[in-house]
C-alpha cells in the first residue's frame, strides 16, 4: 500500500427509526371495537330511570298524557310539576311543537289538550312577568285563541 492509498468508507444511510404510528392505529381500532360492543352489541340496560332520560317517542307520550290529564282535571299545579320532570329546555315550545305534529297526524283531541296546556303555561309565565292575561280554563271544548309559534323544532 502506498501513501496514495486511502481507506474508503462508503457513506452509510442513517438507520431508519421504526415508526410508532401503528400503536395509534391499534388504539383507534380498539376504541371503535369497544364502542360498537358497548353501544350496540351489549348496550347498557336502563333501570330506575328518570322521565328526562326517556327516548323521544316516550317523552312525547308522557307529555301527551300530562296534557290530556290537565284537560280532564284542570289541575294546573300538578301538570306543571309533572312537566318539570321531563326537563324540557322550553316546555311551552315543546308542547306547542308536539301539538302541531299531533294535529298533522289527525289527532285533534290530543292536539287540543297539548295546545291548551301550552297556552296555560304561557299565560302563567306572562302573569309572573306582570302582564295581565286571561288564563284559559281546562275544558276540552275550549280552543285557545292564542296562536302558537310556528317554529320548526330543531332535533
Amino acid at each position, binding site marked *: 500500500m502506498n501513501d496514495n492509498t486511502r481507506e474508503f468508507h462508503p457513506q452509510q444511510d442513517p438507520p431508519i427509526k421504526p415508526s410508532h404510528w401503528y400503536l395509534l392505529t*391499534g388504539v383507534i381500532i380498539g376504541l371503535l371495537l369497544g364502542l360498537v360492543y358497548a353501544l350496540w352489541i351489549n348496550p347498557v340496560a336502563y333501570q330506575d330511570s328518570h322521565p328526562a332520560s326517556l327516548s323521544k317517542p316516550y317523552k312525547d307520550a308522557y307529555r301527551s298524557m*300530562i296534557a290530556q290529564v290537565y284537560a280532564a282535571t284542570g289541575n294546573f299545579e300538578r301538570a306543571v310539576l309533572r312537566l318539570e320532570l321531563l326537563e324540557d329546555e322550553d316546555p311551552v315550545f315543546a308542547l306547542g311543537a308536539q301539538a302541531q305534529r299531533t294535529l298533522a297526524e289527525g289527532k285533534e283531541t290530543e292536539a287540543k289538550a297539548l295546545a291548551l296546556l301550552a297556552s296555560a303555561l304561557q299565560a302563567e309565565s306572562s302573569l309572573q312577568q306582570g302582564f295581565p292575561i286571561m288564563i284559559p280554563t281546562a275544558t276540552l271544548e275550549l280552543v285557545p285563541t292564542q296562536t302558537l309559534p310556528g317554529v320548526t323544532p330543531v332535533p
Partner: protein
Amino acid sequence: MPNRRRRWIFFALAIGVGVAAGVFIGYGPAAVETENAELRTLRIDYLTDYTLMVSELYQHEGNAAMAAARLIYIGDPSPKESVETAIAFAQDNQYAPKDLQLMLDLADAIRNLNLDPESNQ
C-alpha cells in the same frame, strides 16, 4: 425477540387499550348522556305517577279498554299487575286517599275487562 414479533405484540396491546377505553366510554359518559330509556324502566314512583295519570283519564273518559292500552304501552303485558304494583307503592308511601281511590277504581275496571287469555279459553 425479533423486532417484527415485538411490534405485533405491542399492536395487540394497543388494540386492548383501545377496546378498554371504548367500553369505558360506551358504558359511562355516552350511556349517561343518551336519552334512550323506555317507559318500563322508569323508577317505581314515576311509574306509579304514570298509572295515576291513566286512572285520572279513566275517571274522565270511562273507557277501561283505553286505560288498559295505555298501561300496556308502558311495556308490561299485564295491565292488572301494573296497577296493583302502583297501588302497593301508593299505599306504602301514603298517597292522597283520592288518588289511591282513582287507582283502585281503575284496578276494578281492568279486572272486569278480563284481559287474562287463560281465563278466556
